[in-house]
């Protein structure tokens, strides 16, 4: 039989593939539940197989029909508990469903593909199992949920039967419809009338909807050559409003061929309706059912049926309709070419389109009447509507990442089985939505990564036992939203990646030189797997490790604008993080200016913007080797000057005469700085020429009486550096640009073919003013500059490592906000206490009830000055003041300050003796100034003790103080935190580092009820300590609170895996104490 591709066929393929996608996971779930089957699930799979079978039978796809028929048989037996779904059975079913996918994807050839293997194995499974005693089955059957238990409906002559459920019936009866079983004869009723079955179905869809359909093959009898069989019954299970009296007119067939399904599920021929009594009883029946009996207008019927037609087979899904995105040429692509969209979303789109038309009309009117104000208003409206429209259209393209995730349980199961490993896969965040194109494109890279995790990551059970791990490995696949991007994490608890080994392999393969390898950090070594031509597998397996692995993954993700990063610890596992944009067409970007032209940098590459004021350039920018680097929070960040890479003259804006000037500085770092050991005489020429130009500029400006000393050149505002810190996968660098503009959402447009050679651009975009701006490809920029992830980090990395090592074990880094109370004394508070900084006038301050307050966000904000408590110089009387809004004791308060304020990251030792007093925790030297560290808690507590509720003192059952173990390497913090915990009535054991803490814990194992630990500590850091504690059976339930200076997402995630229960910020006494109470065990 030749197979025709028409609408019905497309629909069949789409639906079947959808069913199959679900079948696989459902089968796995059935396997997991074992003998204790979930009837709903089995029914679902059964129904799916059944609908495919029905459709296939109708289309003449015998192979598909036969295969599904056998599957259905087995599923039926599982459902009736004649058979227990063991892995073997499920395996055969899974293989069959794979074969089915293959058949459906090659539907034209499906009848020629050999599936006897599958049929045979299915048959042997179906027959091989001894049937249970009938009585037993009956008892079990009774347990079934009635609504889901299908009834078998068959025509009086027993030619075909349908398995129907109450769901189907009630769906069909909706709106007072009648349900019929109609027996068509494909030969006499269709073929001889010059119709096709699909004509028939579409006819039927216009008057009702088809619940199910079947061909009765048995009734056909023998097929004789050149002669049609006597009959070819095609039975349709059909719901329509048309009354039994008129139904035969609709299809021009005999009354005898139409049967009605009555409410008590009896099948009766409509021929009986010629009897008027029966007619009356039928009406009564209908009324009882709740049908309103009144005839609907044709359009109403149409409307209803159209929606229901597209909805058939899936009454449980929400209202969806299909939008044909693109007419496809081949049948194979059909499933990708259409998209299900929520109807309410379509309505929103329609409304927005309507509004857009309205606003356009208004705009046209405003323009023709020359009313600029009206035009402006419509312009704003159009702006608003356009962005809403954009958002709504984007939503139609959004799909759950679950579509991709759902195939992994099977992948992992099969692969783990082949490799003899035990692996459990956990999926999180399946509901996270991504653009359709991205969903389609990440499937392969993710599969590769997941397979890698199973193949290379998770060890064999015996190896795991040896390593003291649970012999079942665990892979967690997680998706979540963060900062307008989607993050996907694949983590396993396998053997991890060995940086040394990787580096050695890389050197052996000539990917990097030995020198380069030596200078790489561990993380960089791990990220070597992304280098082209690199495979980690010592032996090549058929699973992964074909040597084209990770670099292809990376290239694919790069193409999507994604970023990939690996973290790994030997023996503990590997975590791969992927960041993906939500969509590709419209991307948020940072607009920058270089050489007078605008360029866009995609936000996904953007880490932060950095402006180094002119007077700090000298201190913070230096030359290491031949690269310029900037110090950023203790690390060295390589710098690239955009203008140099793309060969243009950079410019700067001269605020004195308001014009753009060419910036002639060749080197950013200050050559006069004595700190720079790489200072050489080579620069003098450049410098001289610069001096000359300076002088010339001076002459130009002499009329303005601005006399500048050439030496002050670097203090000129224009000498400030604007740096865009960008990251591309493993590496991060600073791009020096002339100006930073706003961030904008841009539409990516491709560049012409003559510009394909320009690797530094990812495309172009059209700005609001109609001009074009180029989109920079920051990864390629770095490559062009010779700053590959390995080379670029040569010396910079080395220095950074040294820096880190110097830092490690000595002091904690703390971000602080520096401000002043008057012009001389400098104060600091930890920046994570600060909510906002407000600029106010002194007139904004009111004195009410002896206290200073100001209006702030609809309430009153209590204002404090430091001199109210501490003996410091009184607050300066100035017109312009700053209020630092701080959150303490669940309320916001303001600390009055004057500028300049500055945020710094310091790692200096805090002296908590010399200058300590009430309201002041201690002092430190910051930027040549002795700076007093303000005790915000003490300050507020002294002035408003009533704000701090007395906490009940937690005591042990014996009435003793509760003991807390506190590990912290900084004396200052240890004394502080210990002090206030003791004030709250706890007994605190202090430890200088993780090792000491561990020993103290062993010593006091009976008393310690809770551990508070710093993260960065010498010898044994907070993570390691936590892991050690949690791994020890005696302490597994001991709560651990980490105290940090900064808790980023990554840290929290890391801490979570190390067993840390909560994160608190150092010096936030209120929150820490609440957390302590919260986590203390109830019975101590």
């Amino acid at each position, binding site marked *: 039989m030749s197979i025709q591709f028409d609408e019905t066929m497309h629909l069949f393929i789409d639906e079947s593939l959808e069913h199959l996608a679900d079948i696989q996971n459902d089968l796995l779930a059935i396997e997991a539940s074992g003998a204790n089957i979930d009837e709903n699930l089995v029914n679902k799979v059964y129904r799916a197989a059944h609908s495919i079978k029905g459709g296939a039978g109708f289309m003449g796809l015998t192979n598909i029909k036969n295969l599904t028929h056998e599957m259905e048989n087995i599923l039926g037996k599982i459902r009736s508990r004649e058979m227990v779904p063991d892995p073997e059975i499920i395996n055969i079913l899974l293989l069959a469903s794979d074969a089915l996918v293959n058949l459906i994807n090659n539907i034209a050839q499906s009848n020629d593909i050999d599936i006897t293997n599958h049929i045979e194995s299915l048959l042997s499974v179906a027959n091989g199992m001894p049937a249970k005693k009938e009585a037993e089955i009956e008892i079990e059957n009774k347990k079934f949920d009635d609504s889901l238990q299908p009834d078998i409906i068959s025509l009086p002559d027993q030619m075909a039967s349908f398995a129907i459920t109450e769901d189907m019936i009630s769906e069909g009866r909706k709106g007072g419809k009648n349900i019929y079983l109609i027996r068509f004869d494909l030969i006499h009723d269709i073929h001889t009338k010059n119709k096709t079955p699909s004509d028939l179905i579409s006819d039927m869809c216009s008057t009702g909807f088809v619940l199910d359909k079947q061909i009765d093959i048995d009734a056909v009898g023998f097929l004789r050559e050149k002669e049609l069989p006597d009959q070819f019954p095609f039975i349709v299970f059909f719901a329509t409003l048309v009354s039994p009296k008129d139904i035969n007119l609709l299809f021009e067939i005999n009354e005898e061929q139409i049967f009605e399904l009555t409410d008590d599920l009896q099948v009766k021929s409509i021929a009986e309706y010629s009897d008027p009594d029966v007619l009356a009883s039928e009406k009564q029946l209908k009324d009882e059912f709740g049908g309103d009996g009144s005839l609907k207008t044709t359009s109403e019927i149409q409307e209803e049926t159209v929606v229901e037609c597209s909805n058939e087979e899936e009454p449980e899904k929400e209202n969806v309709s299909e939008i044909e995105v693109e007419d496809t040429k081949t049948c194979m692509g059909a499933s990708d070419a259409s998209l299900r969209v929520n109807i309410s979303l379509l309505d929103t789109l329609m409304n927005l389109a309507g509004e857009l038309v309205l606003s356009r009309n208004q705009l046209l009117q405003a323009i023709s009447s020359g009313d600029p104000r009206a035009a402006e208003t419509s312009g704003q409206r159009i702006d608003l509507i356009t962005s809403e429209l954009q958002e709504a259209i984007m939503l139609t393209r959004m799909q759950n990442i679950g579509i991709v995730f759902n195939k992994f349980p099977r992948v992992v199961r099969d692969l783990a089985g082949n490799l003899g490993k035990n692996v459990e896969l956990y999926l999180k965040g399946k509901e996270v939505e991504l653009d359709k194109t991205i969903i389609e494109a990440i499937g392969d890279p993710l599969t590769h990564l997941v397979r890698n995790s199973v193949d290379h990551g998770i060890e064999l059970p015996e190896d795991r036992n040896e390593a003291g791990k649970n012999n079942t490995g665990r892979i967690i696949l997680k998706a979540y939203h963060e900062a307008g991007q989607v993050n996907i994490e694949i983590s396993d608890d396998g053997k991890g990646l060995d940086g040394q080994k990787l580096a050695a392999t890389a050197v052996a393969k000539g990917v990097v030189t030995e020198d380069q390898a030596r200078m790489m950090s561990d993380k960089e070594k791990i990220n070597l797997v992304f280098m082209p031509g690199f495979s980690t597998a010592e032996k090549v397996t058929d699973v992964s490790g074909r040597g084209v692995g990770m670099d292809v993954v990376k290239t694919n993700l790069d193409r999507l604008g994604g970023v990939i990063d690996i973290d790994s610890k030997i023996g503990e596992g590997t975590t791969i993080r992927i960041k993906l944009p939500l969509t590709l067409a419209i991307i948020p970007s940072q607009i920058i200016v270089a*050489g007078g*032209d605008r360029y866009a940098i995609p936000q996904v590459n953007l880490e932060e913007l950095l402006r180094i004021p002119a007077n700090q350039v000298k201190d913070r920018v230096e030359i290491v080797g031949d690269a310029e680097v900037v110090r950023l929070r203790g690390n060295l960040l390589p710098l690239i000057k955009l203008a140099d890479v*793309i*060969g*243009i003259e950079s410019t700067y804006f001269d605020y004195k005469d308001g014009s753009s000037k060419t910036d002639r500085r060749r080197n950013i770092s200050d050559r006069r700085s004595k700190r720079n050991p790489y200072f050489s005489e080579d620069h003098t020429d450049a410098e001289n020429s610069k001096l000359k130009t300076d002088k010339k500029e001076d002459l130009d400006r002499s009329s303005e009486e601005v006399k500048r000393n050439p030496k002050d050149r670097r203090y000129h505002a224009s000498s400030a550096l604007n740096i865009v810190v960008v990251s591309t996968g493993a590496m991060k660098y600073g791009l020096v640009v002339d100006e930073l503009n706003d961030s904008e959402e841009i539409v990516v*447009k*491709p*560049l*012409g*073919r*003559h*510009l*394909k*050679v*320009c690797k*530094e*651009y990812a495309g*172009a975009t*059209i700005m609001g003013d*109609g*001009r*074009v*701006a*180029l989109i920079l490809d920051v990864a390629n920029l770095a490559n062009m500059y010779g700053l590959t992830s390995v080379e670029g980090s040569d010396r910079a990395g080395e220095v950074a490592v040294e820096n880190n090592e110097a830092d490690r074990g000595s002091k904690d880094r703390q971000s602080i906000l520096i401000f002043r109370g008057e012009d001389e004394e400098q104060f600091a508070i930890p920046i994570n206490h600060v909510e906002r900084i407000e600029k106010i006038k002194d007139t904004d301050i009111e004195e009410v009830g002896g206290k200073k307050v100001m209006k702030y966000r609809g309430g009153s904000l209590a204002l404090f000055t430091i001199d109210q408590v501490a003996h410091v110089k009184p607050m300066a009387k100035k017109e312009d003041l700053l209020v630092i809004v701080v959150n303490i004791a669940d309320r916001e308060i303001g600390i009055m300050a004057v500028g300049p304020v500055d945020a710094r990251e310091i790692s200096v030792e805090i002296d908590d003796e010399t200058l300590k007093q009430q309201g002041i925790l201690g002092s430190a030297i910051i930027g040549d100034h002795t700076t007093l560290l303000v005790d915000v808690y003490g300050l507020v507590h002294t002035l408003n003790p009533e704000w701090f509720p007395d906490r009940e003192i937690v005591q042990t059952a014996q009435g003793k103080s509760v003991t807390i173990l506190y590990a912290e390497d900084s004396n200052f913090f240890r004394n502080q935190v210990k002090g206030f915990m003791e004030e709250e009535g706890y007994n605190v054991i202090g430890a200088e580092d993780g090792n000491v803490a561990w020993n103290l814990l062993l010593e006091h194992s009976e008393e310690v009820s809770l551990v508070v630990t710093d993260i960065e500590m010498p010898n044994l850091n907070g993570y390691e300590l936590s892991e050690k504690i949690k791994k020890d059976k005696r302490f597994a339930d001991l709560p651990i609170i980490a105290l940090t200076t900064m808790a980023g997402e990554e840290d929290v995630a890391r801490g979570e895996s190390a067993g840390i229960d909560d994160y608190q910020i150092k010096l936030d006494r209120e929150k820490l104490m609440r957390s302590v109470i919260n986590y203390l065990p109830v019975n101590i």
Partner: protein
Amino acid sequence: MSQPAQTEIHSDTVELASFYIGEALCGMDILKVQEINKLIEMTRVPQAPEYVLGILNLRGEIVTIVDLGKKLGLKSTGMSDKTRNIIVNSNGEHIGLMVEEISDVIQAEAEKVEAPPANIGGVQGKYFTGVFKTEDRLIGILDVEKVLEEES
């Protein structure tokens, strides 16, 4: 651009949009031409091939502007009031060819088109499909696709 008032167009006649590259008068099949623009403000593309003058926004599409003179190995096209961009459709992409000056639309009868010589006004013969000779003039018919081939 004034359409010559010719009433009869023979089937073996090609309409040529003619323009000057340097001193040489050249033409191209008018069906290739999408439109002819005065100079609009372009965005330069640093590091682009020498013959690319920049890119511009043509009703939402990014169009590469090619200096035709430079592309053909002559000196770069001088900018003046007469400079025009001929926007052509090539391989599904719009590309602007900047020429010094445009001239009339010329009817070229097929029988008067001859094979191109090795060199027309300093431009290599390979860029032409032929030359159209009138009594007083010689017009090189440019092979647009050949001209726009990317150099490797």
